[in-house]
């Protein structure tokens, strides 16, 4: 019954207490620590940091704990915290070619400078439940064997290798004249530049982007992708403080980068060449970056003079619906009372039915 949502402050406070109780679960079971979440649920932390667009493993772990493991709720918590932070400025672009690589694979070349580094990956695990993990005394301290030689210091990007031959479009050069947009400060406007688009996709819901990326592969906006390269590792973050005037390293972050290589038949002005789709995330979010790269490429349809026929190519459709915080809020606002509107609709439908009955009666007479 609609009126049941009338209820005051006490109901809300009691509801919060119930949540706290459910979050804690059986008090006989030891409470989950933030360190445990941070260390043993790293991929959840990575996703929350990426879509929450705040690189802070501790806060992400706290958000996951507070949200009882509901990652969308955790993302929302992190966003609501992030929005209160002061923006000091922008860092220099990170240099992923200088990444301390932990994983680097290319699907386009068998062997290439820097080599293939499989690194930590679920790709070649057999998805069999590992009951050893369920043992009460845990799994101890598993240790991976050390490689015979270290990863090469220089691991050039596959797209740069292709670039030497001019077979792939040039990366859009950094233009200091045009500041990079920030959609957390300025509203999204259309047509959106690639800077805003990539920001939107980076914050976008993984599931939504995955489905859209998948749709391009199945024929709804096909653009022949190859995973040119996926790399995971640590990169330095550099910032130029105004009072210094030169760049200093302020920290190191883990990122996943995906460079998708796509076909392009060329146009009157441009020779046939490969085009790019790009994906980047905080932490290790491989599925997300691949989906992001597919969608980024699909959204370049207008720029590349391709016909726009499918959802993944439709900028307003994709960018307006990608954000899980916006989508979750608006879908769930249907829980709020709507009884004034509903009452209006009741009045209307009664009036329409009266008119309908009258018309039918008149027709019968």
């Amino acid at each position: 019954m609609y009126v049941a949502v009338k209820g005051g402050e006490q109901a809300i406070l009691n509801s919060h207490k119930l949540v706290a109780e459910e979050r804690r679960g059986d008090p006989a079971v030891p409470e989950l620590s933030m360190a445990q979440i941070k260390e043993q649920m790293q991929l959840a932390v990575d996703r929350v940091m990426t879509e929450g667009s705040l690189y802070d493993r501790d806060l992400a772990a706290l958000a996951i704990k507070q949200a009882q493991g509901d990652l969308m709720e955790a993302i929302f918590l992190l966003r609501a915290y992030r929005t209160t932070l002061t923006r000091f400025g922008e860092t220099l672009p990170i240099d992923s070619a200088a990444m301390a690589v932990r994983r680097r694979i290319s699907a386009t070349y068998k062997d290439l400078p820097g080599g293939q580094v499989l690194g930590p990956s679920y790709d070649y695990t057999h998805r069999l439940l590992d009951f050893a993990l369920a043992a009460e005394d845990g799994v101890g301290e598993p240790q991976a064997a050390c490689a015979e030689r270290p990863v090469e210091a220089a691991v050039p990007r596959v797209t740069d290798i292709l670039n030497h031959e001019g077979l792939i479009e040039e990366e859009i050069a950094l233009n200091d004249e045009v500041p990079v947009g920030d959609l957390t400060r300025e509203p999204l406007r259309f047509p959106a530049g690639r800077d805003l688009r990539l920001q939107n996709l980076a914050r976008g819901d993984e599931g939504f982007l995955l489905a859209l990326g998948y749709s391009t592969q199945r024929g709804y906006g096909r653009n022949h992708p190859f995973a040119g390269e996926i790399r995971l590792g640590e990169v330095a973050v550099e910032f130029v403080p105004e009072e210094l005037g030169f760049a200093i390293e302020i920290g190191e972050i883990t990122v996943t980068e995906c460079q998708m290589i796509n076909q392009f038949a060329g146009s009157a002005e441009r020779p046939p060449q490969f085009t790019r789709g790009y994906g980047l995330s905080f932490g290790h979010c491989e599925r997300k970056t691949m989906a992001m790269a597919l969608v980024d490429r699909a959204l370049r349809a207008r720029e590349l003079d391709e016909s726009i026929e499918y959802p993944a190519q439709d900028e307003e459709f994709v960018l307006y619906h990608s954000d899980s915080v916006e989508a979750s809020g608006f879908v769930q606002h249907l829980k709020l009372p709507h009884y004034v509107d509903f009452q209006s609709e009741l009045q209307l439908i009664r009036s329409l039915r009266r008119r309908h009955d009258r018309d039918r009666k008149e027709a019968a007479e």
Partner: protein
Amino acid sequence: MGAMPKQEIADEEGYSFAYLDEQTKRMIRRCILKAVAVPGYQVPFGGREMPLPYGWGTGGMQVTASIIGRDDTLKVIDQGADDTTNAVNIRRFFARVAGAPTTEATAEASIVQTRHRVPEDPLREGQIIVYQVPQPEPLRPLEPREIECRKMHAYKEYGLMQVSLYEDIARFGEIATSYSYPVMVNDRFLMSPTPIPKFDNPKMDDFPALQLFGAGREKRIYAVPPYTKVKSLDFDDHPFAVQQWEEDCALCGAEETFLDEVILDDKGGKMYVCSDSHYCARRRAEGHRGYLSEGAAEAYAAAVGADAGGANADEEA
């Protein structure tokens, strides 16, 4: 608008007065000024994430947070009522982050934040009403694309909306829109009055108070300055008309208010009460009685499981 806060940090540790940082509030105030200067025009603004979900009033909250000062008194209603959970929650939020005095009395409030209703008591000059807006674009049901909608506003090309209303008349014999009924503001911009029932539309016209509209998820602010013409779309042979009830308020006997239908049992028993809870309580305190008169309060309480005495409405002030 309230005075600038003298003290930056509110009672809530670690957050700025009224939650938003000063830069953000300044940005939003600029957008509000622009919106007031161009009545009915949707001004894009850099909406922030709020600690409440999108769709629950984040736009209205950002507007309120930007204009509220230490001297302001805030009233928050949802569906016309002060005691619905979301209204209670938003009122608690501002009491917490801005230390704002709150009230349920429309006349005592300097700022009224509302969802889905305009209060029955008339507002006066100097007051501000802030509407929570889920979808600021009145043309959206007809044209999903933002780029197209903005062009239509720029060219004042609203034929599509007129055709849609005409199609209703052709199909149903009347305009089948009972809430979010589109209005023309200042003879220039087509505007969504937010999902208020069309019953409330006439109140917006020539309104003495400033009307501000905040859409958080869609990141738009718009405004209707005091004493501005707001006209509900209609046709000469199908003039705009508001909803009417065959009954009066069962509690206070009001004849000209928007009524909520309260289901009393599962056999079709029902009663109608004012959706504006403060208005109804005030009338009862003044001695007005509805047709259920003495038994009404009990019947109402039994139906909604709440205290329906309601005469003492200032519990939080």
